[in-house]
């Protein structure tokens, strides 16, 4: 990838959709209409997008509490996602899960996950299905730097290498797990080096550089698809907002906060690069901006107007049969 116009526009559309989705939730959250916790992905869009560009609907991803970006990049319906976040019956999970549990198995999205380190074991399970059934399916686990320290993550990496599973572990290092810095909490030289210790081919890339992530993801996903086993990628990109909406972020300095968008805006970096390469025009990208804005606008309006589930829905879907 790098010169195909349609692919570049597709990538930009996904990244821009994630950004606008998150920026809009940041604003709408202050109205009090969005229940519960939201964790925004703004700043990390290039990572989910670059990885998911190489995945098919039949491939699986497992996500985190910060899952909106992964869901959009994997093709989840934006209207249904927004409705879910508002707790509406029209939501992707009928209002039962909310922001931290968005899932769409049709799109290969195994779920956001409110347990840190919850998804890696599940994702190797999806990879096991692909291996046992002999498909060329691939499964990708997204984890944060904080989740990289969880025992479940270590166990999953080891089992993936032992069973030679078609899986890729993406570690999104955004510098912090809640209010604790990655440099404090990760004892190894880097998350990538530690993954290497488990026997996985692993690289560290700049997560604000779409093309860097894309190249690493392509190699790792191809390796998995060809039955050559698991890999890991550590992608470094800071989140623009707090851990959750409402986080005062005292663990970050004022300088750090002001510099985030100046130096670490993956959308701006992408735009500058593709416009300079003359593969796409400013007008192409501006048009996508417009389309995305109106898509998010109508998603918010529809979500606000949709009905809540009713009391009867409380008791449904606990079991398939009972």
């Amino acid at each position: 990838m790098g010169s195909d116009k349609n692919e570049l526009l597709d990538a930009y559309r996904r990244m821009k959709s994630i950004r606008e989705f998150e920026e809009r939730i940041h604003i709408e959250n202050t109205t009090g209409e969005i229940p519960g916790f939201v964790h925004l992905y703004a700043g990390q869009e290039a990572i989910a997008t670059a990885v998911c560009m190489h995945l098919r609907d039949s491939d699986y991803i497992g996500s985190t509490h910060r899952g909106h970006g992964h869901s959009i990049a994997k093709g989840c319906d934006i209207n249904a996602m927004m409705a879910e976040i508002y707790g509406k019956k029209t939501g992707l999970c009928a209002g039962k899960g909310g922001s931290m549990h968005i899932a769409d198995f049709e799109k290969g999205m195994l779920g956001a996950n409110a347990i840190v380190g919850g998804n890696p074991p599940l994702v190797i399970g999806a990879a096991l299905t692909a291996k046992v059934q002999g498909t060329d399916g691939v499964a990708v686990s997204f984890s944060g730097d904080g989740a990289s320290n969880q025992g479940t993550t270590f166990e999953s990496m080891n089992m993936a290498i032992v069973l030679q599973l078609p899986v890729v572990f993406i570690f999104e290092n955004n510098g912090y797990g809640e209010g604790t810095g990655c440099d404090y909490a990760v004892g190894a030289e880097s998350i990538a080096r530690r993954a290497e210790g488990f026997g996985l081919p692993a690289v560290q890339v700049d997560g604000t550089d779409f093309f860097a992530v894309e190249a690493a993801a392509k190699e790792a996903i191809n390796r998995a698809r060809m039955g050559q086993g698991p890999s890991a990628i550590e992608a470094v990109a800071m989140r623009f907002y707090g851990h959750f909406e409402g986080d005062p972020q005292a663990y970050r300095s004022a300088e750090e906060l002001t510099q985030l968008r100046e130096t670490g805006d993956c959308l701006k970096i992408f735009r500058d690069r593709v416009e300079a390469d003359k593969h796409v025009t400013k007008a192409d990208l501006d048009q996508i901006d417009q389309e995305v804005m109106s898509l998010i606008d109508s998603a918010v309006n529809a979500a606000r107007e949709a009905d809540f589930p009713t009391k009867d829905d409380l008791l449904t879907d606990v079991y398939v049969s009972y």
Partner: protein
Amino acid sequence: MTQKTIREALNDALRQEMRRDNNVIILGEDVAGGHGGTGVIDAYGGPLGVTKGLIGEFGANRVIDTPITESAIMGAAAGAAATGLRPIAELMFVDFMGVCFDQIFNQAAKFRYMFGGKTRTPMVIRTTIGAGMRTAAQHSQCLYHMFTSVPGLKCVMPSNAYDAKGLLIEAIRDDDPVIFFENKLLYDHACDVPDESYAIPFGEANVVREGRDITIVAFSRMVHIAEEAAKTLASEGISVEVIDPRTTSPLDEETILESVEKTGRLVVVDESAARCGMAADIAGLVAEKGFSSLKGPIIQITPPHTPVPFSPPLEDAYIPTVAAVVAGVHRLLKV
């Protein structure tokens, strides 16, 4: 005596016990916060602010921020407790017990018995419980019934700030593993709390309100729901006794049985579980040991047998309400 919130009362208890005994340490995720960042240390002071300021007084050697790694946190607390410290480990949400239960129920809880009475494991696990914050199925459970069923663990769940302080001090001084359940919706709940240190013994229920016609046993935040219901019922001329056991293990059976002997009727309000929860446990106790005083069936007010839903109207329907308790009492009294 000053008015303090539960958050402040807990902070008081931790500070006073850490001053008293250098072996008391705190460990958990973001119990201070800010390590390895560009901002300030103690940026969080605990995810819900309970441990704020403690690292300033006691230092990072005793107020320990850990990686996100609950198995290692709980195991380290158990191992340290068995070898001379008195750790207070924080499990941010009780829902995360899934990641670390082995270290709690197979290890810490069983050491003393398995090793023929040779060990002490004086650790406290502070954790948060409860629905009502729209935090969905993996951040809203109570689960104290599961810990209560494990021999070797003591389970404590204060409903007010006075009890919170006294029970936490008792928990820290206790030589067995204690799980201390803090309801997320109660942190700002305030009442008079003495500045000086005091301990409340485990296994002593608090009779929150005396009454003649009916006994309501309730836990944690449900004590407040029961009290509200009692007020409503009082205006109808129904006299309700409200009992807060405060600890489910050990359980003050006597206070409950004596009350039922007096009123002849029992309602249990419990947010933990519809099946095999504290409501069922108390109902079983009274059915067996208080059967002859019962004038009617025991009513259990619990959530339905479902995970905690996200959407507000669903979550509101999930949590036991004042109206549900009043209706339960009406059913029992056939009014």
